[in-house]
């Protein structure tokens, strides 16, 4: 009788086969799903290097035959990217800082102190998520157009200034503030009460405890909230278009580029629709690129933050 296998090679056990099969299926499934997300982004990136000749050429698939950076250059120029970027970055960063600070402060109050109306305030913060911003935007528009404090008409028009949005951010009612308050509150609730007591014994008041004990230990969570806020503020157009309709921030520019491209190309006698959409595509990429970079560097915080927030506990 022949021995089919040499005894030195061990036949894989059934258990090993199953776990190998499981790993294989996991990889295949995840890769397929990841492809759906990655492909459009990758395709857009590849198209940004193409000319319209490439797109009308059936033999070209993703990889250009006439490499060009002109789409990027035109989009950059039309959006006045250098200055627009700095302006937008400054604005968005200020909103983000204000929002993060306000949300942290409010969430700490809601999580750590017992006072009448506490749960009502928490419920309200959740309700703000359900109310469509359209409802509030109209009265707020009028309110800021003709600012009156407690019935006293000041005659100030705050529209087309960053103040309305900043006020909303400070008071914890900015874009998606409710969600951020929720995350932060969950974190502070699970935070051990003993630390407070220890700080109190050492003679620290509640504010000292907040700044010297709670904040440093909530570092990761703070970064998470900051990054979420940053990304959402960056891609928000609704609040900007309501309160600052004539502003030239990137989130406004990116949708206006299409019109600008049309005007610019028609002036030069070129009415190639494909070429126009290519420039548009590059403008979009230029707009989102900073956030992708932020995300790649901060991805740890995005992911850990939700895990740590105690949304689970």
């Amino acid at each position, binding site marked *: 009788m022949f021995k089919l296998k040499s005894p030195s090679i061990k036949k894989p056990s059934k258990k090993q086969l199953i776990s190998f099969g499981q790993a294989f299926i*996991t990889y295949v499934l*995840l890769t397929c799903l*990841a492809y759906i997300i*990655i492909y*459009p*982004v990758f395709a*857009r990136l590849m*198209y940004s290097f193409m000319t*319209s000749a490439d*797109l*009308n050429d059936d033999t070209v698939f993703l990889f250009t035959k006439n490499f060009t950076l002109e789409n990027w250059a035109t989009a950059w120029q039309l959006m006045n990217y250098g200055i627009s970027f700095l302006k937008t970055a400054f604005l968005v960063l200020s909103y983000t800082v204000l929002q993060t600070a*306000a949300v942290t*402060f*409010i969430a700490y*109050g*809601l999580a*750590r*102190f017992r*006072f009448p109306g*506490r749960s009502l*305030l928490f419920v309200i913060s959740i309700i703000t*998520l*359900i*109310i*469509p911003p359209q*409802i*509030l*935007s*109209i*009265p707020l528009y*009028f309110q800021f157009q*003709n600012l009156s404090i407690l019935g006293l008409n000041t005659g100030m028009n705050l529209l087309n200034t960053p103040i309305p949005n900043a*006020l909303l951010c*400070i*008071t914890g*009612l900015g874009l998606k503030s409710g969600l951020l308050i929720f995350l932060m509150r969950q974190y502070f609730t699970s935070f051990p009460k003993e630390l407070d007591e220890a700080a109190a014994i050492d003679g620290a008041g509640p504010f000292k405890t*907040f700044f010297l004990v709670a904040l440093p230990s909530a570092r990761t969570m703070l970064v998470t909230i900051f990054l979420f806020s940053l*990304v*959402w503020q960056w*891609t928000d*157009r*609704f609040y900007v278009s309501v309160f600052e309709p004539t502003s030239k921030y990137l*989130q406004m520019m*990116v949708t206006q580029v299409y019109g600008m491209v049309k005007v610019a190309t028609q002036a030069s006698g070129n009415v190639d*629709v*494909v070429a126009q*959409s*290519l420039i*548009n*595509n590059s403008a*979009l990429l230029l*707009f*989102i690129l900073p956030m992708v970079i932020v*995300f790649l560097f901060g991805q740890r915080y*995005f992911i850990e933050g*939700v*895990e740590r927030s105690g*949304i*689970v*506990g």
Partner: protein
Amino acid sequence: MKGIKNKYTKMQLREMKTGYIFVLPFIIGIVFFLALPIFDSLRISFGDINTFNGYDIVFKGFTHYFDALEDVDYIKYLSEALKDTAINTPLIVVVSFVIAMLLKKEFVGRTAYRIVFFLPVILSSGVMADIMVDTLIQSIIDPTTASDMAAGVLSGGQEFVTKLLLSSDISTDISSFILYAQENISVVLSHSGIQILIFLAALQSISPSLYEASAIEGATAWENFWKITLPMVSPQLLVVVLFTVIDRFTDMSTKIMKSIYDIGFVDLQFGRSSAQAWLYCAIIGVIVAILYAILKRTVFTYEER
């Protein structure tokens, strides 16, 4: 004053005071930027604003609400939003749960996959969602000329499947369904980022001792899933379902949200816009409340924390 003093100790009073200081900005915000606008918005929705600069409201009762119910566009957009939410919410919840299950195990490249699945949180929020959806729709509705088809290529993975379907003998009904499904799967995936994270965190917090105990009892993986995994993540399931429903309804890129905005700020019919927004909000509120009431009962609470 005396009553309050008797009811609470000095310590408690001090705690209350500090608490109020912390939430003071929020209280101010609620009064000026939430309660007041809500009151105004309700007032506006029951009338028409007379002059653009002032606040002269001509009271018209429920006219705008009844008009909204007879507005063909509004009803169409509303039913589209309802349909979209009804179809996509279960899909998003299930898909994100499956992905979280797959990502739970340790394997090489796990971090990279997690990054990819979270990427849509950036790529599909706010103005990005608008633009991505816009170009996609334009390319599907209007592929009249060759150059437009080429422009449609920019919308992503659509091109390959479209070409494949055009060259095959499949009837247009079926091929349009396939295109819809293909478009939808990317919609589902691009709105699953946060849900995946919540599920992932929940799955990882399940104590391994539960599975060890059930292995000793001889339970199969299938039984484990239904008797341990699912009950243990049911609180997060509730959060995820409600979050998804709200997220879908209030997505700025939905037609109804856009039309409400346009009626207000483009057509300057603020009364009509407000009434439509309130009606929509009421519908969302009722649906969320019903879902919460139903799901709350199925949530399993594990006493020993």
